[in-house]
């Protein structure tokens, strides 16, 4: 068993749309890979994997629109065929790279951001031009670095190529530099730190007009300046336009240069008409703040990437036509991790004021549920309502949420909301809003776990816990299903810290500082109190199934206690610092995350015995506060002692860096690898759901029909290069004629194309057959050269004409000897040719 990082942190940072006839692909960097999405289906097609560190930038190869360059912090630039996901070449630069730029005019040269010093702590970056050597090898070291400029901004959007690659513009703080390649000169223009109105003038992004000598720059105060006439250093002019109220994050000219797109924190995409002054169009409320905009090379599609892990695909008519959404990452996950009992989806904070439902099974974002139901104002530093608590009842019919505003200031506003599941719309509908549920902040809440009656218990900092029931109020007959307060309890005015229902809901445990109180929810009678000082109780959980007589508690003073509820006595206790206690709803197991000496350990134990079933030291280096057991569809039959606790459900947990991690067994991993089939769409057929079904079927058929195809389908293997080295190392005199080898060798270097793939293969087969035929004929002719009639001679000549026009006997013998030598290694070459 080992720990697997879930592939959910789709950190979409740098999208680029490609135009392959119909704009079908969006590429974006995500961690150490580049992901390829289809713009039509919004599905993830495949990812380009090979970098060993964060991928920092991608750029389409201007010479070949089916290829893309990517640069990474591991110091390499890779060239990919992104349609089939094949690595074509790797250029080793040797320094960590931070951005990449290419231009059509500078073929074979890429421009890269590298750090001034090897340790990137010093905030100095330089722009270098790298000449990519034209070598046939897979891995090439590119050593020809020439610095274009030093001391440039670390922000990659502060550099852009001008018209036809004649100049490159880059900005840093308050200075705009333009480097002209022909003159080999840098002009620089600077702005004042602040003008009269106190605006912040620092540059934030740059875009150059594709056909005109014009540079658009975005500024920190939301202004956009259009610079002209900068070819003559002294006579430059600029015009200013202002719509954004905060920093402009990104600028982009459409390929024809008719429009300028800009975006910022307001999450409004603004389209400025070039040359018409102030005419603009807006596309508001796109999601999180816009980080990057790019346009496809034919200008038909734009796409924006957002801070909430989302890519929006926009048509040129300014309509949203697709949304690619990853796991939404807010600033922090304030709610617990939860599982929706109906859809088995993971539920946590999503967009501001929303709860997101994320299917772990399909690794896909399902939907956002709007909890706050208010217009979100995109403004930095504004105190907004945030969902801080949420809980599901056991059947998934009720959802309780708490939203809060004013955590920092004195006057706290919060609402308790109860949502019921609507079968018809397959979503949650607001049922009750409680405005002043408590006089102070709600600390925690939980639903009773019994099937018949649903009850919600909330505990708050005002020292009270309240039980909420549905339809207690008999007077309001028309709406029986509203929720109202049933009971208010407190214990010596102490502040409650946690609450929990037992598995059968016959007991409610509420911890007040150091004391655990046990209540009967039927009569609201205090049954008993349990106390084991020192330390305030942090977590509470009841045992399940055979261990239901136990209650586990953890304290802030490194104590894990297990109470026997039948004897009301301490069963066992151990000294361990537990940051999160989570019980499995389907088994007796309890997982405890312990944070000690800067790393987190995981213990899994059963309450009835004080020794762990499973221990995993050093799970991660951060504290873990959120974890959840996700029930499996069907239990695994795993006999392995150490992984038995994972048979019923899977444990997911969230680190402080917002990485979602899980434990998985070995068998699962195998399955994961094997099930990496992706939906690739043929261009000839319209993309419909039917097509997706049929297309998959056809693909399978194809595979069955042509087994040779399968071998070709596999990504290029390292053996390919071995073959080539063998080819090169074999003595020349034992090789077949160069005319035979050449075409094979060249075609092996070509990019693969699944459609064309069969043809060279077949050709090869045919040609070798031909060869065989001719060989036989030659042998025949050898025997009866004299007896042959002119007709036969003519036929032989016709067929073998190109290969062996005229052969002497010695030559023929030599050829035969060559043919008898073992060329089986060539098969590998042929196979690896794709």
């Amino acid at each position, binding site marked *: 068993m080992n720990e697997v990082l879930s592939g959910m942190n789709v950190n979409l940072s740098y999208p680029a749309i490609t135009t392959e006839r119909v704009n079908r692909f969006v590429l974006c960097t995500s961690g150490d890979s580049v992901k390829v999405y289809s713009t039509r289906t919004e599905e993830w097609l495949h990812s380009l994997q090979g970098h060993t560190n964060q991928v920092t930038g991608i750029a389409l190869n201007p010479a070949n629109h089916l290829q893309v360059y990517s640069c990474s912090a591991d110091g390499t630039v890779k060239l990919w065929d992104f349609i089939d996901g094949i690595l074509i070449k790797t250029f080793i630069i040797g320094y960590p790279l931070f951005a990449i730029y290419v231009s059509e005019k500078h073929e074979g040269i890429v421009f890269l951001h590298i750090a001034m010093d090897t340790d990137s702590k010093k905030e100095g970056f330089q722009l270098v031009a790298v000449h990519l050597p034209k070598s046939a090898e897979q891995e090439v070291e590119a050593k020809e670095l020439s610095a274009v400029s030093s001391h440039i901004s670390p922000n990659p959007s502060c550099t852009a190529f001008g018209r036809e690659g004649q100049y490159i513009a880059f900005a840093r703080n308050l200075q705009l530099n333009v480097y002209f390649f022909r003159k080999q000169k840098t002009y620089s223009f600077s702005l004042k730190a602040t003008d009269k109105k106190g605006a912040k003038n620092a540059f934030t992004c740059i875009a150059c007009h594709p056909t005109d000598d014009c540079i658009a720059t975005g500024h920190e105060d939301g202004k956009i300046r259009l610079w002209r006439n900068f070819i003559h250093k002294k006579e430059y002019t600029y015009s200013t336009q202002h719509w954004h109220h905060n920093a402009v994050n990104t600028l982009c000219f459409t390929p024809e240069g008719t429009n300028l797109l800009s975006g910022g924190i307001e999450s409004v995409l603004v389209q400025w008409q070039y040359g018409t002054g102030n005419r603009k169009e807006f596309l508001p409320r796109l999601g999180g703040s816009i980080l990057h905009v790019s346009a496809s090379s034919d200008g038909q599609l734009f796409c924006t990437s957002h801070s909430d892990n989302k890519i929006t695909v926009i048509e040129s008519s300014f309509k949203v036509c697709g949304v690619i959404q990853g796991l939404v990452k807010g600033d922090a996950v304030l709610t617990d991790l939860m599982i929706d009992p109906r859809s088995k989806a993971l539920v946590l904070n999503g967009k501001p004021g929303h709860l997101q439902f994320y299917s772990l099974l399909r690794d896909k974002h399902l939907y956002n549920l709007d909890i706050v139901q208010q217009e979100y104002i995109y403004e930095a530093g504004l105190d907004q309502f945030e969902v801080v608590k949420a809980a599901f009842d056991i059947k998934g019919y009720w959802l309780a949420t708490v939203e809060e505003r004013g955590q920092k200031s004195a006057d706290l506003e919060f609402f308790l909301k109860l949502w019921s599941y609507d079968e018809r719309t397959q979503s949650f509908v607001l049922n009750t809003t409680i405005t002043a549920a408590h006089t102070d902040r709600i600390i925690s809440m939980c639903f009773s776990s019994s099937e018949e009656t649903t009850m919600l218990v909330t505990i708050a900092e005002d020292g009270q816990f309240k039980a909420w029931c549905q339809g207690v109020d008999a007077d309001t007959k028309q709406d029986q299903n509203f929720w109202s*307060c049933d009971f208010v*309890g407190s214990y010596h005015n102490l502040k409650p810290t946690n609450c929990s229902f037992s598995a059968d809901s016959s007991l409610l445990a509420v911890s007040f500082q150091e004391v655990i109180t046990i209540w009967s929810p039927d009569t*609201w009678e205090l049954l008993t109190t349990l106390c084991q000082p020192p330390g305030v109780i942090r977590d509470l959980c009841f045992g399940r199934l055979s261990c239901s007589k136990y209650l586990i508690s953890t304290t802030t003073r490194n104590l894990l206690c297990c109470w026997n509820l039948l004897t009301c006595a301490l069963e066992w206790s151990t000294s361990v610092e537990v940051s999160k206690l989570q019980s499995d709803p389907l088994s007796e197991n309890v997982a405890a995350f312990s944070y000690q000496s800067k790393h987190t350990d995981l213990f899994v134990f059963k309450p009835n015995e004080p020794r762990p079933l499973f221990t995993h030291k050093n799970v991660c280096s951060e504290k873990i506060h959120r974890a959840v057991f996700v029930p499996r569809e069907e239990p695994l039959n795993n006999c392995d002692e150490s992984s038995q606790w994972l048979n019923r459900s899977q444990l997911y947990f969230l680190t402080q860096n917002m990485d979602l991690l899980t434990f998985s067994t070995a068998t699962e991993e195998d399955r994961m690898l094997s099930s990496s089939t992706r939906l690739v769409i043929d261009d000839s057929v319209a993309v419909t759901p039917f097509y997706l079904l049929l297309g998959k079927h056809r693909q399978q058929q194809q595979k069955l029909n042509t087994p040779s195809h399968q071998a070709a389908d596999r990504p290029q293997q390292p053996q390919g290069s071995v073959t080539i080295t063998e080819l090169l190392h074999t003595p020349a005199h034992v090789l077949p004629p160069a005319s035979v080898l050449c075409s094979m060798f060249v075609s092996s270097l070509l990019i693969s194309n699944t459609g064309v793939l069969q043809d060279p293969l077949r050709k090869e087969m045919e040609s070798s057959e031909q060869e065989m035929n001719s060989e036989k004929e030659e042998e025949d002719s050898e025997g009866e050269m004299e007896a042959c009639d002119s007709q036969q001679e003519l036929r032989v000549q016709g067929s073998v004409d190109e290969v062996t026009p005229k052969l002497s006997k010695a030559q023929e013998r030599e050829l035969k000897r060559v043919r008898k030598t073992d060329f089986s290694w060539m098969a590998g070459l042929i196979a690896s040719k794709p």
Partner: protein
Amino acid sequence: MASFKPTKVQFLPKLGEKVTEETLYWKNYKSPVQIKEFGAITKIDFSPLPPHNYAVTASTRIHIYGPHSQEPIRSFTRFRDTAYGGSFRGDGKLLVAGSEEGLIRLFDISGRVALRQFAGHSKAVHVTSFLSDGFRVVSGSDDLSCRVWDVPSAVELSSLTEHTDYVRALAPSKLNPDLFVTGSYDHTVKVFDMRSGSSVMTMQHGHPVECVLLYPSEALLVSTGGRYVKVWDLLKGGQELVSLKNHHKTVTCACLSSVGNKLLTGSLDRHIKVYNSSYKVVHNFDCDASILSMAIAPDDEALAVGMTNGVLSVRHRRHQKDKETLTSRRRRGPSYQVFVKGKNFVPRQDDFLVSKPVKQYLRKYDKQLKSFEVSKALDTALQTWTRTSKPDVTVAVIIELNRRGTLKNALAGRNEESLTKILNFLLKHIFDPRFSRPLLMVGDIVLDLYQQVFHESPVVERLLQRLMEVLGREAELQQELLQVLGILDTLFASLTPRKEVMAHAAPPVAQESQLQAA
């Protein structure tokens, strides 16, 4: 992308009174029609036949009113002394009434002169009624006797003298012509059976009985007297079912609504209480004077209340029809054709449908909020109609502005007129616990913004003065309330047996927030 989310107007129910179906039903009466009579109204009786005229006994007269007339359609005035207890026969054609002098008179509804006179009682007869066969009359008198009279021959059939004090309440059985119930000032309620000629059941009410009432099933009996209303189960041999003490003065009358058998009781404390089937008060009517008598028409069409000051107040039921005509008159928008034009077009099979995006209609203030015109949005929300009839909308806009962090901008730069508007709104609503929190904030901001220029406008200065006064008074009141709460807490604490855990029932949320506001 996602559309603009309009401002959410929070629905906060008014505190104190819960709106239930019952209250809605009983509130659905028009405002009362007041008719002045000559003296205290001691008895009101509805005719069982439509159009349900009603007889009102007051002073020396009995007036009969039509269902909607304010003038009596007939009156019987041939009484030498005060008349009492005028009640209809089951067919609505005859009326019987007692009087102070002890005579019982029988009238034909269409006649004027008494058809019969029954003489025999030596003292005033306060209650009279027909038995359900319609041929006999029963009467209760201050001479401690109950007598049964034969109508055709005008002779006394029997005299029952089991009570030891004035007989002031009487209810004949509708199912059995030989049974009737009497209530007396000797604190007892007796059920008499004419077949045996004596009482068959006696119940101790504990107070002088003012009124008795039989449920239509005749299994339950209601008696009122003192501050108590008691319900007796006759099938269990006169066991007390429930004793209600909701009035703080003598309960003088009771009646049953014909829809759902709700019990109504009227009292000298000027209240009419409506009880539901589990005897909880669901509604309360207030009157101007002490109530002596009360009757409700079949189908609850009208509620007539007689009071000590001689005012008869009649409430008529409001019908759905009236409301509809009202609303239809108000809503006269564009004509049908304008809305339907082109909407009823049915596309043919091969037609290519181009769908139009659904337009989102926003309120004016929402439109202004959408375009970040905060000051204008506040102006819109403070328009006269909105701020008077829908203060919750105004407050919702204020809350929304505060959430956006632009409340200060919206309030700044106002002239005297608009500032007066805001201050008046504050004065009116600042103590409403639903609104006090945002409005106090508005008050703070206004003071901060304008403190330099207040003295320039006498109007604004006066309003501020008033605001200060009211706030001071409210603070005092809240302080007193807190003191009372403290006193109550100590009382409760001393009453409850000492327990380890203090667990008290939920104080209403309203109260808490009110205290917070203070």
